[in-house]
C-alpha cells in the first residue's frame, strides 16, 4: 500500500503579495512607522519580517486610482509609503464614479418593453457598453485592477476632501471590524502604499503596544461611541455618559475572520462536534460579568438539553445579552447565572460592557420606569422575540431555526425560502427571474432542504457579505438604497474572487456572448470573457423580486431568518 504524504500546510504558504522580496522587507523595516515596532516582542514563528513578507504587499497607485471606496468591505489596511492621497468627505462621490451600478427602477412602459427586447442568446452583452474609458485600470494580475477617477481637479473642486500623506494609516477599523469602509480614498499623485491584510494587522495589534494603542484609540474615538449610542439600552445617555461607557467597554473578537473558507469543510461535520469547536463567548451557568453586545458577525445561543446542546436562536449585529441576569443580581437575587451558552459562528466581534458600568448607567434608568420594554437581546421588541421567549419552545418548534443557524443561513437577509409542501415545481419563479434578466435566470431552484423547507441557491444578500471582500474593482457592492448586494457588470473583470468566497455557492461565473450566441473572446489569449452573475433582487423592477411575485402558490418567500417563526411563517417579506 502506498502512503500519500504532504508537508503540513503552514500559515504563510500563500503570501499576500507574491512579488515581495527580501529587499522590500529590508526597506520596510527602515520606515519610521515600522521601525517603531519592537521586533523582539514578536514570537519567532510570527516574526515582524515574516509578517511584512507574507501578510503585506507593496501597491503602486497612479494619480486618480481609487484605493478604497465608501461602502466596500475590505480585509486590509494601508500605510502610505510615498505620495499623497485624498479622503473624500461627506456626502462623498456618486456611485457611478466609484464603478458602481446605478439602479433606476423601470417605469411601466420600460417594464413592458422587456416582453419583446429579450435576446434569444443567453448571457448576451453589448460589448460597446464596456467603454475602455469607463474608468477601469486593468493590471496583469486581475486582483490588482483599479477603478480610477478621470478628472481629479474637478473632483477636488466639487467635493470636500482631506489630504493623507506619507506615514498615514487608514482602513484598519473596517478591516478588523468587518464593517463597510466609511469613505472613499483616492491617489492624488502617483503613490506607493503598504497594504497589510487583517491577519498581519491582528499580529501588529497583539504584539506591539504602539499599534494596539493606535488602533484601539481610533476605534474608541471614531466608532465605539456612535455604535453604543445607537443601541436601545444606551440611547438615553448623554454624550459624557456615553463616553464613560465607551471608555470602559472591552473589545473582543472570536472565531476566524475567513470563516467562509472553512465553512464548506465544516459541512459534513457532526452537528454536536461542530458546536463544540466554536469559540465560546459565554457559558451557561457561569457568573454574568457584563452585557455582551454583538458588533459584527453572528453568535449561536444554545442551551444544554439531555446529552446535547439545543440551538435556540442566534445573535446578530446590534443584539445583546446579559442585562437581565445582571439586573437580577443587582436587585438582590442570589445564584443568578447565565441561562445560555453563546458561541461564535464564524467571526464575531463582541463589546463587553462591564457590570459596574451597566449598573451605573442603565439600571437607574430602568428603575425610573422609562425603559423602552427591552432588556435582553432584542433591539426591536415589536417585531422579534426575546431570548427568554425561546426557552419555552419545543425541540420541534426550534428545529428550523437551529438548522438555519447550523447552515449559516442566518447570514442572509433575503434568503429564498421555499415551502415544498406548497411548491408545485412549476418553475414560474425561474421563468419570472429569466424574464426580468434578459432571459437569464439568476438562481437555481434547488438547494439544501430541511423537512418541507428549501433554501434555494439564490443570493441571500448577506448581513456579512464575504463575497465583497477582495473584489479588486468594487464591482460587487452593497446598494446604498435598499442594502442589496449587486454586481456592476461593467466593472466586473471576471476574477472569480466573489464566486470563490461565497460560502453558499450562489454566485455563478458565466461566459458572455454576442448577439449571434458566440462567446466573446479576449483577443490576447482567445479565452472567453467571463462575468460574475447572481440575484440582484430585481433592484430595477417595479414589482420587487420577480420570483416571489410570480409564485402562484405562495410557496416562495424572500426572508430574513430572524423573522421566521417555528412554523416557517415569516414576519413579512
Amino acid at each position, binding site marked *: 500500500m502506498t502512503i500519500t504524504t504532504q508537508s503540513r500546510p503552514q500559515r504563510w504558504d500563500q503570501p499576500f503579495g507574491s512579488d515581495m522580496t527580501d529587499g522590500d522587507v529590508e526597506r520596510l523595516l527602515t520606515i519610521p512607522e515600522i521601525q517603531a515596532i519592537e521586533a523582539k516582542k514578536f514570537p519567532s514563528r510570527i516574526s515582524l519580517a515574516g509578517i511584512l513578507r507574507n501578510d503585506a504587499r507593496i501597491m503602486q497607485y497612479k494619480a486618480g486610482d481609487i484605493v478604497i471606496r465608501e461602502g466596500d468591505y475590505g480585509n486590509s489596511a494601508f500605510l502610505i509609503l510615498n505620495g499623497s492621497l485624498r479622503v473624500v468627505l461627506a456626502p462623498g462621490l456618486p456611485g457611478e464614479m466609484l464603478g458602481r451600478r446605478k439602479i433606476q427602477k423601470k417605469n411601466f412602459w420600460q417594464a413592458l418593453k422587456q416582453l419583446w427586447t429579450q435576446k434569444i442568446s443567453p448571457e448576451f452583452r453589448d460589448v460597446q457598453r464596456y467603454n475602455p474609458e469607463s474608468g477601469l485600470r486593468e493590471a496583469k494580475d486581475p486582483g490588482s485592477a483599479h477603478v480610477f477617477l478621470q478628472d481629479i481637479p474637478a473632483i477636488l473642486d466639487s467635493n470636500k476632501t482631506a489630504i493623507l500623506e506619507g506615514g498615514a494609516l487608514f482602513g484598519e477599523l473596517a478591516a478588523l471590524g468587518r464593517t463597510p469602509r466609511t469613505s472613499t480614498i483616492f491617489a492624488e499623485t502617483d503613490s506607493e502604499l503598504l497594504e497589510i491584510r487583517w491577519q498581519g494587522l491582528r499580529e501588529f495589534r497583539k504584539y506591539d503596544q504602539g499599534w494596539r494603542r493606535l488602533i484601539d484609540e481610533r476605534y474608541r474615538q471614531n466608532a465605539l461611541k456612535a455604535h453604543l449610542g445607537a443601541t436601545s439600552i444606551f440611547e438615553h445617555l448623554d454624550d459624557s455618559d456615553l463616553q464613560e461607557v465607551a471608555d470602559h467597554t472591552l473589545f473582543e473578537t472570536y472565531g476566524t475572520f475567513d470563516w467562509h473558507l472553512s465553512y464548506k469543510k465544516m459541512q459534513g461535520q457532526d452537528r454536536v462536534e461542530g458546536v463544540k469547536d466554536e469559540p465560546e463567548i459565554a457559558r451557561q451557568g457561569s457568573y454574568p460579568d457584563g452585557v455582551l453586545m454583538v458588533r459584527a458577525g453572528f453568535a449561536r445561543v444554545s442551551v444544554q438539553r439531555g446529552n446535547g446542546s439545543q440551538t435556540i436562536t442566534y445573535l446578530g449585529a446590534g443584539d445583546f445579552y446579559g442585562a437581565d441576569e445582571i439586573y437580577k443580581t443587582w436587585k438582590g437575587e442570589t445564584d443568578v447565572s447565565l441561562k445560555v451558552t453563546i458561541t461564535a459562528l464564524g467571526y464575531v466581534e463582541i463589546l463587553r460592557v462591564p457590570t459596574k458600568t451597566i449598573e451605573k448607567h442603565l439600571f437607574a434608568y430602568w428603575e425610573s420606569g422609562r425603559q423602552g420594554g427591552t432588556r435582553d437581546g432584542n433591539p426591536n421588541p415589536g417585531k422579534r422575540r426575546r431570548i427568554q421567549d425561546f426557552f419555552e419552545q419545543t425541540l420541534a418548534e426550534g428545529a428550523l431555526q437551529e438548522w438555519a443557524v447550523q447552515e449559516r443561513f442566518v447570514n442572509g437577509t433575503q434568503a429564498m425560502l421555499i415551502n415544498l*409542501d406548497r411548491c408545485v415545481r412549476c418553475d414560474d419563479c425561474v421563468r419570472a427571474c429569466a424574464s426580468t434578466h434578459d432571459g437569464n435566470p439568476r438562481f437555481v431552484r434547488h438547494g439544501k432542504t430541511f423537512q418541507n423547507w428549501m433554501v434555494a441557491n439564490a443570493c441571500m444578500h448577506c448581513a456579512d457579505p464575504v463575497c465583497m471582500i477582495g473584489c479588486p474593482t468594487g464591482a460587487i457592492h452593497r446598494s446604498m438604497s435598499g442594502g442589496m448586494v449587486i454586481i456592476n457588470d461593467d466593472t466586473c473583470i471576471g476574477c472569480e474572487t466573489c464566486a470563490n468566497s461565497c460560502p453558499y455557492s450562489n454566485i455563478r461565473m458565466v461566459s458572455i456572448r454576442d448577439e449571434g450566441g458566440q462567446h466573446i473572446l479576449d483577443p490576447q489569449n482567445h479565452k472567453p470573457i467571463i462575468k460574475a452573475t447572481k440575484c440582484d433582487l430585481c433592484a430595477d423592477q417595479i414589482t420587487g423580486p420577480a420570483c416571489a411575485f410570480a409564485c*402562484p402558490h405562495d410557496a416562495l418567500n424572500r426572508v430574513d431568518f430572524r423573522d421566521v417563526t417555528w412554523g416557517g411563517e415569516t414576519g413579512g417579506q
Partner: protein
Amino acid sequence: MKRTLGYAVIAILFFALIWVWTLEVDSSLNYPEFISGGALFFTIFFLCLFNIRKRVPFLPLWPARKWFLLHTVAGFLALSLFWLHAGIMWPNGLYVQILVFLFYLTTLSGIVGLVMEKVYPNLLTRIGLECIYERIPRDIAEIRNKAETLVFECTEKTGSDTLAQHYLETLGWFFQRPRFFINNIFGGQNAQTWVMQQCSILERFLNASERDYLDKIFALAEIKRKIDFHYSLQTMLKNWLLIHIPLAAAVMTMVVWHIIVIQVFFN
C-alpha cells in the same frame, strides 16, 4: 385561508347579484340569458387573463398568488354561472353541446389540476429527495451506470454471475428509465414492493460478498424509485396545463362565436 374565504364570499355575492338580476329581468318578460351570459363571458375572460398575467411577471399586475386564488374561485363561479345561464346540465344543439362539453372538460381538468397541486407537493416532500425535473434523465443514467459498474465489479471480484444474470433479466428493466408511472401518480407503493421482491428473491442465492453488492444496488434502486416518483408526479404537475390551457382557449373561441351568432340572430 382567510383570503380564499374572502374571495369566495365576493364570488357568492356576485353570483347572488346576477341571480336576483336575472329573476327581475325574467319577471319583466325580458331576456335573463343576456345578464347571466354577460356575467359568464366576463368571468371566462377573467379566467383566461391569468395565463397572460403569467407571461408578464415584470408588470405590477398584482402578485401571482392573488391571481391564482381569484382564478380558482372564478372557475367555480363560472360553473355556477353556466348552470344559471343554460338552466340545464346538457343543452340541445350540436354547437352548444360541443361548447358545453369543452367547458366541462376545462372545468374538470382545472379541478383535477387543483387537486394535484394541493396533494402532490406534500407527497413529493415526504419522499425525502428533491430533484429538478429536467435533470431526471441524467440522474437516472448516472444511477444506471453506478448499478452496472457494481454488477461488473461483483462478477469480477466474486467470480459469480448470479447477480449479473438477475440484473440482466429483471433489475436492468427497472434502471432503464422511469417506471411505475401510473401507480406513482395514484401514490401507490408498487415500485417499492417490486424492488424489495426482486432483491429478496435473489438474496438466498448469493454469498456474503455478493450480498454486499446487492445491498449497494438496492440502495441505488431506492434512490431511483424516489426519482421515478418525482418524475411521475412532476410530469403530471407540469403537463396538466397542456390540456387545460388549449381547452380553455377553445372554449373562449367558441364562446366568442356563440355571442356573435346570438347577436346576429337576435338583431
